């Protein structure tokens, strides 16, 4: 296939982004493992340790997320998350059909456009809705004993706990799909390597196929 002949190394992820990504990776994995243990599914850390780890990691993640929010707004990176319908269908078509035919990705990564339209909407939902939702329900759950002081006596632990559980299922589902999707680069580990070094091999803009340029122009 012609697409692989023109690969270009670009510096895609800054040091902070990569740090943030892997910090979240560790946090989410620890939170999922301890969280499902606390749900009574298995014994791994032991209940008490699981509680301590879950609370500590949760709070750490929450604080780190505030730094991330600061970073994303001050650097203007939030624009990478603006959802768009443009090329959305093409990306969907690629993953359900083109990928099996060896077609090139319809939206190669660029420094100023790291996310394809599908990623934009998924990561927006993740970063702006699902993760904050999980952090808020988690913080409330963690602060259960302080609800009266926080003026939240009317809150139901059942509701908070079940919402938090539902959020955990959603995040676990994301993790599964995410881990799979990162193998769909031009090699199995290409995307992973990029998130470690910051450098990703992307298709040269010159090498994109005619049909795509046409679509772009349309």
């Amino acid at each position, binding site marked *: 296939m012609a697409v692989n002949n023109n690969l270009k190394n670009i510096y895609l992820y800054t040091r902070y982004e990569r740090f943030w990504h892997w910090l979240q990776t560790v946090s989410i994995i620890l939170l999922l493992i301890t969280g499902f243990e*606390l749900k*009574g599914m298995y014994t791994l850390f032991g209940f008490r340790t699981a509680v*301590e780890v879950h609370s500590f990691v949760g709070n750490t993640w929450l604080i780190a997320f505030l730094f991330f929010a600061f970073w994303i707004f001050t650097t203007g990176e939030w624009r990478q998350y603006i959802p768009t319908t443009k090329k959305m269908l093409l990306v969907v078509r690629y*993953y359900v059909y083109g990928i099996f035919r060896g077609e090139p990705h319809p939206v190669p990564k660029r420094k100023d456009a790291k996310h394809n339209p599908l990623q934009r909407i998924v990561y927006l939902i993740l970063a702006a809705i699902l993760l904050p939702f999980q952090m808020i329900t988690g913080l409330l759950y963690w602060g259960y004993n302080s609800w009266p002081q926080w003026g939240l006596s009317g809150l139901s632990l059942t509701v908070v706990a079940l919402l938090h*559980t539902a959020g955990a299922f959603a995040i676990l589902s994301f993790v599964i*799909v995410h881990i*799979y999707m990162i193998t*769909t680069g031009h090699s199995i580990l290409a995307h992973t390597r990029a998130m470690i070094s910051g450098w990703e091999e992307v298709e040269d803009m010159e090498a994109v196929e005619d049909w795509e340029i046409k679509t772009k122009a349309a």
Partner: protein
Amino acid sequence: MNVKSNEARCTSCHAGYGWKGKDFDFADQTRVDCLVCHEQTGTYKKFPAGAGNPVKEPEVFKGNNKKYLPPEWNKVAQSVGRPTRKNCGTCHFFGGGGDGVKHGDLDSSLIKPNKTLDVHMGMDGQNFDCIRCHSTTLHNIAGRVYTTPASEHRKSLIEDDLASKITCESCHSNTPHKQDAKANDHTDKVACQSCHIPTFARVNPTKMWWDWSTAGKKKNGKPYAEKGEFGKPIYDTKKGNFVWAKNVVPEYYWFNGSIKHLTVNDTIDPSKPVKINRPVGDKDDPNSRIFPFKVHRGNQPYDKVNKNLVIPQLFPKGKDDQTAYWKKYDWNKAIAFGMAYAGLKYSGEYDFVKTEYVFPTTHMVAPKDKVVACTECHARSDGRLTKLTGFYMPGRDASKVIDFAGWGVVLACLVGVMIHALGRIFTRRNGRKED
């Protein structure tokens, strides 16, 4: 079962020291035996059926074939001092007619306990006497009262140095664990005792079941008694069948410190176990906590027609007594006499009903390495708190709908990516370099 009509026996401990007859004034506070609490020779022995009095002449008690001697009054009187565990235990360890019959957390093993049995009272540790916590002011002893909680404010001595020392919080405060320990978050809903007394009756067995309905059986025409495991009676013609147990896991109820008692005047529903007493408390009451109890279960006579418990006369009044159960083994006569004696009506028809009686468990506090583990309550099933419902407990409760939907989505994702991966492997393309 009641003190009434059985006074000579029960007043050995229950109020009524020196009881002589129906006109005895139970409210007279001078009718209190000083020596039983204060004498220190250990030779002051009450005759079991002497209404709290020791014998004047040596006498054998038929119930246990022990010989009771009159006390050496001079020695006994001159020995008086601060009450020890043994003084208190004389009554409190032997309630109900024997060691460990009533309370599961109070028995003779606490006269000389080690730290493992009770971390405060252990002679190899703090060596507390009872009165170290049950502190007194002018003979008013801090402790649990039947109708009102012993302490409603749960103040520590730091907040009020004159507070009674009767609650755990008095000395330990309501945040007794390490700073930020999750256990501190439990103290608003869970009593200290719930975790720190993993089981009761850890040295001596306690009686868990008493079936009066089987009483009255005879061997060769004579009353008999049989001993079982632990060397404790499992059958007695006078009393029926018993079940004893050691290392008993308590049952847990919401408890605000008060206990409500049924009386013989209350109507009962014999179709289910009758709660002779029950802890007062509710999950929504901020003064209630989850508290451990020994639940003593039994089978005892009730009035079939009037639907109330009855007061049988057990203890014979003399050699010619024609009604006492322990003489004639006739429930009807014993109940008729006991009820008439108490001034209550009796239909003449009795049957037996299952009953439950709760004893709060607060002694036999284990060392901290023996506390109840998190997952004994935070467990999906068969946890210690499985029966306490109506609130969300992490690790125990879940929503079937959310779990089902959640795992459904997770599974769908897994299957989806696997199919996709197989597709890529099968087509062998995916834009990878072709060799």
